[in-house]
């Protein structure tokens, strides 16, 4: 029988991955023009420089940082639900985490494509593709986790055993 996902085994790898990607970002050369550049016409407003110039050295490291972070989040949820990799909730949470990873990757990819000709972009539901992935994808994908929590609530989150254990703790009749 498989063991529950324990925090003793995975965190070391994930923490190392987070540190490696963070350090990879921090030691990358910074863009000459920097960030938060004052807008050319409007005081108090900022503008970005060209994306190619700003992100040439950090796009890959940042993608790796994001992917690792999403993995941390997914593992924390699987662990918090006391699931096993092989049970249904564990597998579905893993699948939902992979969906989030794919959305994140699609967003980074769309942005990269957009860099070749920033102004000639198509729009999806009112936003350029990268921003649409960000808002509609990254913003709404968490509903997968919400749905799993609600759907598996009685089976895995607060089971009969949990409820009766809770009643025992409070000395309440079942």
């Amino acid at each position, binding site marked *: 029988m498989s063991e529950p996902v324990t925090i003793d085994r995975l965190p070391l790898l994930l*923490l190392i991955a987070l540190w490696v990607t963070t350090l990879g970002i921090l030691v990358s050369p910074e863009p000459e023009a920097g960030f938060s550049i004052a807008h050319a016409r409007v005081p108090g407003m900022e503008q970005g420089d060209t994306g190619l110039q*700003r992100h040439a050295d950090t796009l890959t490291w940042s993608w790796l940082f994001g992917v690792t972070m999403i993995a941390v989040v997914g593992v*924390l*949820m699987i662990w918090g639900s006391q699931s096993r990799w092989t049970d249904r909730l564990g597998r579905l949470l893993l699948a939902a985490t992979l969906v989030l990873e794919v959305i994140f990757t699609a967003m980074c990819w769309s942005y990269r494509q957009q860099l070749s000709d920033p102004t000639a972009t198509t729009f999806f539901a009112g936003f350029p593709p990268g921003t649409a992935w960000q808002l509609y994808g990254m*913003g709404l994908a968490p509903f997968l986790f919400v749905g799993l*929590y609600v759907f598996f609530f009685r089976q895995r*989150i607060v089971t009969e055993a949990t409820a009766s254990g809770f009643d025992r703790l409070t000395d309440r009749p079942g």
Partner: protein
Amino acid sequence: MDRSQIVLAFIVGYMLLCIVVGLWAMRRTRSADDFFMAGRHLGFIVASVAIFSSTMSGWGFVGGPGLVYTIGAGTFWMIVSTPLGYCVMFYLLGKRLRLVAEVTRPISLPDAVVARYNSPSTGLLTAVAILLGVLGYLGTQILAMAMVLQSVLADVATIGTLPLGVCMAISSAVLVFYCVTGGIIASVYTDLIQGIIMVVAALLVVATAVATVDGGLGEMTASILADDPEAMSPWGTRGIVGCLSWYFVFVLGLSGQPHIVTKLMMTRRLDEVKGMFPIAVIGFLLSALLWISIGLCMRTLVIEGLHPPLAEADLASPEFLKTYTHPVLAGVVFAGLLAAIMSTADSFLNIGAAAVVHDIPRACRGRSLGNELLWARTATVIIAAVAACVALASGKMVALLGAIGWSVFAGAIVPTVAIGFNWKRATPLAANLAIIVSLVLNVGLQVFSVTLPHLFYNGALALLASLTVFYVVSIASPPPPLDPEIETAMNL
């Protein structure tokens, strides 16, 4: 009635409603347990609305649109991170905190921490971290509340521009009144009203913003994109590293916000979390529409020369409401702005009072103060007064503490509570060191104005460091003995 009087009428009406709720809640507040934990009688609707309205502070309703105006779509990360942050919070703590609360009957988060780790020093450090964050956060909320009121009153011909201190006194008096009389019960029930106002206001604002710019949302984004493609990219003007490091702190850090997670201990039954989770996520996303729509609309209008540049980015919301909305809508939304601010401030007042009258004395003297309810009410007044005075006297200090509040809580409480309440191997020494690392790094980097390469967010580095210290020290130190009841609660 002219426009300004209509807006004022809504605000007065809203404040009267808060006072009525305070008086009603006073009759239900008979003990410190009622004052700090609502007697653990909250249903899922009240608790979930209280959670999302406490999350969406005045910073979201006033500062959020200002950030979109300044840096573009990069600020959307602060919005899209919250639903995922709720997921982490509910999976890790939704059930666990309520179980621990049932076993230990805590009246604050540090109380539960003391019981979990069997360590007064861990409780003391948690309380100190909370108090530090509370003073900063509360100061910024009180300042924002006064500025909104001042802006509204300035338009009323018979009143004119009042000094900021006077506006602070008026708005704080209402806040303190219902917090003192009704404690957390008044706080969560006003949160319910405030949350509803925020969602209604946000939906009405979206419709207005879309109608304000010819061509609607598509024209706004096209216009911003034509002016500066990067501003409309997912990374805005701050770049990919800055945005992703925000995302990291906002997603993981939500489980460390004491004013939010404390509400998980206040529910009537264990299974209330099932309903709370989706309502909190949906409520937050709906109210965040105001943040996005006003920000995009004002950036577009200014870029196209249809509106003069804003003197300050934080004026994006007030300017939009005064210039482009129907007076009734402006009244509803201005009430919504105050609601967003007050719904967060009241939670901070409550947990701050708990730290002062319960957690810190208990950690230092081994027992809390006698007649805790009276002292809690007194402490509420004092904390509000101190935060207001600090805000008036030293805006810089308030800005500093307010800026690091979220990350201090994230670095200190995520390892100690979100991880530690699920992991039996976690030790008090590890929790203490994680809290100290969080405080030192967050305060140190801010005080010395350290800017990390590529605008990597300081709070993200502090959170990563505190998580690492917590894990490594826990593994390296001997397994701690656990109270049998805590162990049972952690096993369920």
